[in-house]
């Protein structure tokens, strides 16, 4: 292997110098070998350790769910007026993570951004695992979860139909569509890589499995031609979908009359906050994964740098959202709305709100420093902080307005129970469990995308004397 690139910090190199997108550059055979290796070799002890730990968490999750189903939603901390609390917060939180995955995959392919090539499958897997978590909570917080299917419009013997003027019905359609389209997009991108796995499968059984999964893909340029067209079309659809799904989720709240909820900033603000959390979570997942699977040559410091820039950017969007909702409250002179926001800054839940501001507005500002953007440890610190901050942001937008609405006689405090906490922690364990399975079973880096990028970067480096815009291959 070639020597690692010179560390800009040590050589005093200009921090604005482009960082390499691909280190090596590895040959195509090397790429194929190193990128397929994680899904083809046996799991190591770190994977097993994490898998067993997360399985324990999933066990706790199942126990909490069984307890909940046996005893009803009275075991949650929800009360009147705070009828929505941890479960819906977790729904919004998880679905938000899904959206950054789709953004990276879909929107960036449409904008032809090369840095997406090695991380898009991680991002898509994060989306799918997150949407599965999100989909569980609307069912868990129902009083009669066995009737959850009533929200689907099927010809029922009760001769009733769901009511499509409700944001909750929209949620069901949006989340189901999002899960299915995300799976489709992920699979579409995987077909060529399943074919590569088929061609290198060590046993006949595995070869048959990958052959079936890849549908007989021959890597023909005719295939690629149609595939590229379909992929870009589904990417465009996915982009449109992301905005609509997050807006629909936000409308669960904004179409209600509650002061603190009833504001038109919610749809774009929730989209921004979703991206924000998603980029942060992706960093938390990528940094250990690239170290564990020795993928530093394809997920380079450049990727960390760009992802951190996105975290910083979306931190500003979200902070703008905070500014706007408080401004609207003050400018609108509605005493209930002003009261609701004043209670957020100084009332019962103020400590959560200040923690939210600290982690979502203040902490990401450290990412203005280039050295910190390429630091692995700091990426995880900021990533984890933002992931927590986004949860706090959802929570403080849902519970305090409910707890402090129009009539003072209706105001009531809220506190979670162990079931709330177990469901939250359990969903995190289940996410990790699913993500570990993805890392083990599926080629985590798209081979064809990366080979294409390598080819383009190499061509640009050979043709120009000066490097082209993204020609950052380090020889």
């Amino acid at each position, binding site marked *: 292997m070639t020597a690692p690139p010179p560390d800009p910090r040590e050589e005093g190199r200009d921090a604005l110098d482009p960082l390499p997108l691909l280190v090596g550059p590895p*040959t*195509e*055979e090397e790429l*194929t070998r190193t990128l397929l290796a994680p899904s083809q070799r046996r799991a190591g002890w770190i994977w097993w350790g994490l898998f067993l730990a997360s399985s324990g968490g999933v066990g706790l999750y199942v126990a909490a769910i069984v307890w909940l189903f046996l005893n009803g939603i009275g075991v949650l901390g929800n009360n009147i007026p705070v009828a929505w609390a941890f479960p819906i917060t977790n729904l919004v939180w998880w679905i938000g993570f899904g959206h950054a995955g789709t953004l990276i995959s879909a929107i960036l392919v449409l904008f032809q951004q090369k840095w997406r090539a090695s991380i898009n499958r991680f991002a898509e897997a994060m989306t799918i695992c997150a949407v599965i978590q999100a989909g569980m909570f609307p069912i868990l917080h129902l009083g009669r979860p066995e009737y959850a299917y009533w929200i689907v*419009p099927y010809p029922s013997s009760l*001769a*009733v*139909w*769901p*009511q*499509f*003027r*409700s944001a909750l*019905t*929209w949620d069901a*359609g*949006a989340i189901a*569509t999002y899960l*299915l*389209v995300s799976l*489709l*997009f992920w699979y*579409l991108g995987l077909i*060529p890589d399943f*074919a*590569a796995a*088929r*061609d*290198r499968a060590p046993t006949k059984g595995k070869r048959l499995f990958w*052959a*079936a999964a890849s*549908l*007989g*893909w*021959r*890597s*023909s*340029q*005719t*295939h*690629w*031609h*149609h*595939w*590229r*067209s*379909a992929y870009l*079309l*589904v990417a465009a*659809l996915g982009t*449109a*979908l992301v905005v*609509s*799904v997050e807006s629909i989720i936000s409308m669960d709240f904004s179409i209600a009359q509650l002061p603190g909820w009833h504001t038109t900033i919610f749809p774009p603000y929730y989209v921004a906050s979703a991206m924000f959390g998603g980029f942060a979570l992706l960093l938390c997942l990528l940094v250990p994964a690239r170290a564990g699977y020795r993928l530093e040559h394809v997920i380079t410091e450049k990727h960390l740098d760009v992802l951190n820039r996105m975290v910083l950017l979306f931190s500003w969007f979200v902070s703008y959202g905070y500014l706007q909702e408080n401004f609207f409250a003050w400018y609108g002179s509605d005493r209930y709305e002003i009261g609701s926001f004043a209670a957020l800054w100084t009332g019962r839940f103020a400590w959560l709100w200040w923690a939210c501001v600290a982690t979502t507005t203040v902490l990401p500002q450290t990412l203005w420093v280039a050295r910190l953007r390429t630091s692995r440890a700091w990426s995880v610190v900021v990533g984890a902080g933002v992931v927590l901050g986004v949860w706090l942001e959802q929570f403080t937008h849902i519970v305090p307005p409910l707890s402090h609405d129009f009539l003072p006689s209706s105001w009531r405090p809220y506190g979670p129970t162990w079931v709330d906490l177990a469901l939250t922690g359990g969903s995190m364990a289940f996410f990790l469990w699913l993500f570990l399975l993805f890392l083990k079973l599926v080629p985590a880096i798209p*081979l*064809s*995308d990366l*080979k*294409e990028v390598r*080819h383009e970067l190499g061509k640009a480096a050979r043709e120009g004397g000066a490097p082209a815009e993204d020609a950052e291959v380090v020889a």
Partner: protein
Amino acid sequence: MTAPHYAVGEFASGEEMLAAVRELRRLGFGDLDAYGPYPVEGAREALGLGTSWITRAGTLSGAIFGAAAGYVVQWWMNAIDWPIDVGNRPPHAWPAFILLSYEGLILCAAFAAFFALLFAARLPNLHHPVLGAEGFESATGSGFWVSVGSADREERIRAMKQLGLMGARKVQPVDEGETG
């Protein structure tokens, strides 16, 4: 129609592969195809493929169907079959219906794009003769291949000779029923 007799050959790079394809086309060989681990720039023109109309048309029809179906379902259920008064909103609440029609559009369009791709690429096809060529695994690795389908064996021999002249390695004939 009898299955064509294929001749395949491997090239070292995408550019060589495309040069071979252009030359073969110029010499009058029909049924040509090129293979590589990623879409090579210029392959579309060399092979004479236009825009992928099938995927676009498929997606568009899926989109129209999804939007229309989504809207009609909501309208019929909430405005015709079982209208109920919810906060005095009109039963035919078209602004509200737009949202799920939009989701229906995206869902059906995405699946239509996928099935259009399968149709256009004639997949799934696990037993195409070319897959049986020796060393063809490199097509998903770092190799670039060209295949020529011929109606008879004489033409195939000429194709194989031509591939060899252009610098192809592992030139070999492959037939239906000989796949691995």
